[in-house]
């Protein structure tokens, strides 16, 4: 069986008009194994969302190959890409993106309606099963406006699973919920990954997701810098050392922001989860500062 995701020298350049070009991806080589749980991290604007969109067939690369389940989708037309998305990919978004007019049950049915393979009764039955799976059996006939952010995101996860895709792509799935709910969602995705065996690729700023990931890809300026593994990087290469430091500094800024946000929300959280998060952050902070220190020393 082929690997579910294989990217070869993928380049994406946006032409903003007026001769302004932005290189969003500058040559990505990446192989993801079946059932892997991967986080993509990096500062905003580094190209992580673009990468996710290209893997999911929402966008086409300027150059290179994107091989999903052994099929190169890089040069596919709109209709074919829609079919790939429908059958192989499940999307989870930061803003949930449920249809506000439809109930949870109806929202989960959408991908199956588009596929049209199952009879109506089966579609409904499967949608109910999926909502059970994400723990929303009591919310079947609620509209998105009647549900909390966490519940909406769980509906979105159920929807992503509807057509039994081989790959789940999530773009900051915890970015729009509070930390506690975030933990629950992370545990849900991870649990589904373990029981159903789907390959999960998650773009995130959330250390909670990073913690449960089997592999973390750090991206900076359109490149993946921890792929291939760090050991093979020539330690004497100044360019890479620079990039690594940039990445570390970006992560530091993000971590400091996260700590500030945690302090702000201190009263809303339970004592335990606040303490747990705080200790986690402090450990990370210490490690980061040390790494940054080292990178400067190496240069000298």
């Amino acid at each position, binding site marked *: 069986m082929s690997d579910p995701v294989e990217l070869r020298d993928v380049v994406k350049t946006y032409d903003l008009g007026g001769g302004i070009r932005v290189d969003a991806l500058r040559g990505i080589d990446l192989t993801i194994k079946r059932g892997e749980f991967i986080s993509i991290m990096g500062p905003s604007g580094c190209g992580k969302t673009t990468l996710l969109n290209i893997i999911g067939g929402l966008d086409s690369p300027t150059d290179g190959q994107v091989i999903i389940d052994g099929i190169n989708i890089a040069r596919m037309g709109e209709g074919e890409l829609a079919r790939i998305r429908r059958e192989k990919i499940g*999307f989870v*978004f930061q803003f949930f993106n449920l249809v*506000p*007019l*439809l109930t949870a049950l109806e929202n989960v049915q959408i991908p199956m309606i588009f596929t049209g393979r199952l009879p109506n009764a089966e579609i409904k039955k499967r949608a109910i099963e999926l909502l059970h799976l994400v723990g929303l059996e009591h919310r079947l006939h609620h509209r998105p406006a009647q549900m909390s952010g966490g519940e909406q995101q769980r509906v979105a996860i159920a929807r992503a699973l509807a057509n039994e895709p081989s790959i789940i792509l999530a773009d900051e799935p915890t970015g729009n919920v509070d930390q506690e709910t975030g933990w629950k969602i992370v545990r849900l995705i991870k649990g589904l990954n373990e029981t159903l065996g789907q390959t999960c690729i998650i773009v995130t700023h959330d250390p909670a997701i990073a913690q449960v990931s089997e592999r973390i890809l750090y991206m900076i300026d359109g490149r993946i810098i921890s792929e291939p593994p760090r050991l093979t990087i020539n330690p004497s290469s100044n360019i890479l050392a620079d990039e690594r430091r940039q990445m570390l500094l970006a992560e530091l800024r993000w971590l400091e922001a996260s700590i500030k946000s945690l302090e702000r929300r201190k009263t809303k959280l339970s004592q335990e989860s606040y303490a747990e998060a705080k200790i986690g952050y402090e450990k990370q902070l210490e490690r980061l500062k040390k790494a940054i220190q080292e990178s400067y020393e190496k240069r000298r």
Partner: protein
Amino acid sequence: MSNILTVRKMFRTVRFAFTMARRSITRRKFRSALTILGIIIGISAVVSLMTLGYGMRYQVETTLNEMLGAGIVISSSSYGIDIPEYVQYFVSQVPGVNNSIPIVTSLVYISNQPYTVVGIDPVQASEVYQVTLEDGRGLVLGENDAVVLDSTIASDLGVKVNDVVTFSTQTGGVGKIFKVVGIMRPFIGFGQFMNIGVFITLDAAQDFFDKEGYVSSILIRLTDSSQGEQVEATLKQMFPSASIITQEEIMSNINQIMNTMNGVLLGLASISLMVGALGIMNTVMMSVHERRREIGMLKAVGGERWHVLFIFLSEALLISLIGGIFGCIFGLSGVYIIQWFVKILGLNITVPLLISPQILGLGMIAALAVGTIAGFYPSWKAANVRPMEALRYE
């Protein structure tokens, strides 16, 4: 197998699209109601005006059939009173001619108002004109100073039975006195347009216009209406310089007039329908704009262009369907309103209300066509939204 799958897929999407459309319409109640109102106004205008036109055509055709008992009318090409009366004898000998009636029609002034007077043999008058008396009696052969008026003209002139009126050939000219012996129900529809409503005997007319032995037209009744063309051809050979008009020709002329009138009315109605169409376009456009993220999501989970197109098109279709149904209902009520309005204005026109399933069907088709056309452009825009850009939208 793949065909069955495609059909099933289509069916699913159609059902799903209409569910979404229904919810979208009920969610924005006020906006949807206004849009639907636009279509209702347009369709009810179309339906009421077409029903009105249909009723009028029916009316004109039946009165024409009543009035034009004559299959063929021979007149002189100059439309004066200059056909020798003996011509009638030759006409009556033409095979296929059942009866031929000479008449004089010309303009007279009564109290300085112009009217068309018809001079006809009272015995034969009933063969071609269906006269219903309201008061008094009909003309009698040999009566030289009697006149039958229709009730509208009588009331215009302010005369009753046994009163007298003065005929003259020009305004202010010296006249001749006629006694009103009968008042008849006015011809409706066509007769009214032609202003026929003053009858005297043929002899009296010839005498009054000083045209002894001459008539202006000969009305011909056929033994069999299918022989019209043959008789017409024979008459043309016999009287090459005369103007020969058949009933079919008159009918087709009238039909042409009616068609033109209907066309004008429909044109007016379609303007309001067009405004309704703009309303639909605007509503769907706004819906597309508000739901951009949703479109992006639908595409992300595997929706193709036609899925998205249909979801928005069905909103336009549902609006126009509701508008069409209510438009048909209000359109029929509109005919009552027009009838009432005509009565208030004191016009002596009765328009029958004939409910025609064809017109209602046409109204529905017009509504759905307008919905499809108006909804297509915004739906097409929705279908072409690029998912990535729509999802980035905030």
